[in-house]
């Protein structure tokens, strides 16, 4: 094989890459926090909420889980403006990620809620807590603890999926790689480097989720 690898561009384009990483991380943090919050609210409605809300949330969840993220992104960024909803690329990407993770985490968290022993709800009720107070103070934390590994995996999946936001010109890590390859014609090297960065981010994110888990749940597995 005569191909000569060339990473000479790396130092020149380091700022682009750094910026790309920042944006990818920002998308992940915002998407992760708001997405899980949305997912929690949806899980509550599906498991314990008023009956009129359940089919609404179920429809949202099924729609998102059965369509590609790319199309959700295009629909939000290209489709919604024709209804008069204008937004910039980064906002569209953030919204798409929150909506996407919201649906997946809804199902994951719901499984955690449904695994709660009935006695926990009854103990809350017998202490004069309302159903919502019982959910908020008694059921929620052990439920999240139960499904934390699955939720962590999903957050990593969403982070990796965010690579496609480069398609609406959000300047994330993938965008930086595309930019570099278009300038240097060193496509292979550019993509290898960014892929390895993604791998490192995925590993770090998994560790971070584990860390957050130990802070949120100082007690080991609740049954």
């Amino acid at each position: 094989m005569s191909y000569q690898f060339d990473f000479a561009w790396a130092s020149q384009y380091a700022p682009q890459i750094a910026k790309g990483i920042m944006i990818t991380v920002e998308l992940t943090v915002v998407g992760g926090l708001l997405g899980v919050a949305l997912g929690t609210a949806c899980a509550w409605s599906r498991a314990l909420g008023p009956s009129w809300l359940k089919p609404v949330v179920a429809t949202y969840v099924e729609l998102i889980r059965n369509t590609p993220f790319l199309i959700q992104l295009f629909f939000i960024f290209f489709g919604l403006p024709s209804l008069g909803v204008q937004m910039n690329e980064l906002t569209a990407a953030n919204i798409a990620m929150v909506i996407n993770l919201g649906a997946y985490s809804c199902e994951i968290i719901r499984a955690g809620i449904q695994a709660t022993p009935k006695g926990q709800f009854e103990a809350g009720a017998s202490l004069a807590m309302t159903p919502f107070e019982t959910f908020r103070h008694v059921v929620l934390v052990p439920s999240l603890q139960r499904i934390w590994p699955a939720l962590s995996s999903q957050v990593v999946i969403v982070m990796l999926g965010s690579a496609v936001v480069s398609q609406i010109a959000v300047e994330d890590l993938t965008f930086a790689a595309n930019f570099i390859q278009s300038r240097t014609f060193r496509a292979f090297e550019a993509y290898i480097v960014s892929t390895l960065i993604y791998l490192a981010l995925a590993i770090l994110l998994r560790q971070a989720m584990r860390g957050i888990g130990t802070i949120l749940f100082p007690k080991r597995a609740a049954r």
Partner: protein
Amino acid sequence: MIEFTLWDILRNLLLAARWTIVLSLVSFVGGGLVGLLILFLRISPKTWLNWLARGYIELFQGTPLLMQLFIAFFGLGLFGIDVPAWLAAGVALILWSAAFLAEIWRGCVEAIAKGQWEASASLGMGRLQQMRYVILPQALKIALPPTVGFSVQVIKGTSLTSIIGFVELSKAGSVVTNATFLPFTVYGLVALLYFALCWPLSKSSQILERKLNVAHRNH
């Protein structure tokens, strides 16, 4: 400007959706075969094979599918192969699916009680025989629901191949949008078509899972 009827749009999308289906099938079946190989490595008693499989899975599950597509598309070109988009798409999706299927199936194999391995070993079976006659038949049953569930991920994954220029449903969506200037309608329809492909599979996976749970409870 030419007027497009809803039917014009839908017809174009449906035609392109055939390629989504073909690519999904190829990726799923190919990914299944490669995944089986990875699975065998992953559960092999030889540690270095084991680590090889782990590395493979970590690499493909820890990096974006889009990057894998780019590398297949641009990387294979380095070996002097002129890579058409469909080939890069197929290769990347097969390798990607293999990692996920291997990991799903590993969970199923490990869910089979250790006693089953020991019992079959005590009957003088070799490792492959144990697999073939004792472990796989049991693992297959619990593997079915998550495997069907993963097919949904494959279908959705094929949408990324539009980015390297393979013309399937998503790419057709962009092309038709550029021609009609009706992004809301077109992407809405594209989403509905994906939904029509994926939802039955999601539902079957759920139903299979529920059946399995009921069967287990009755044991």
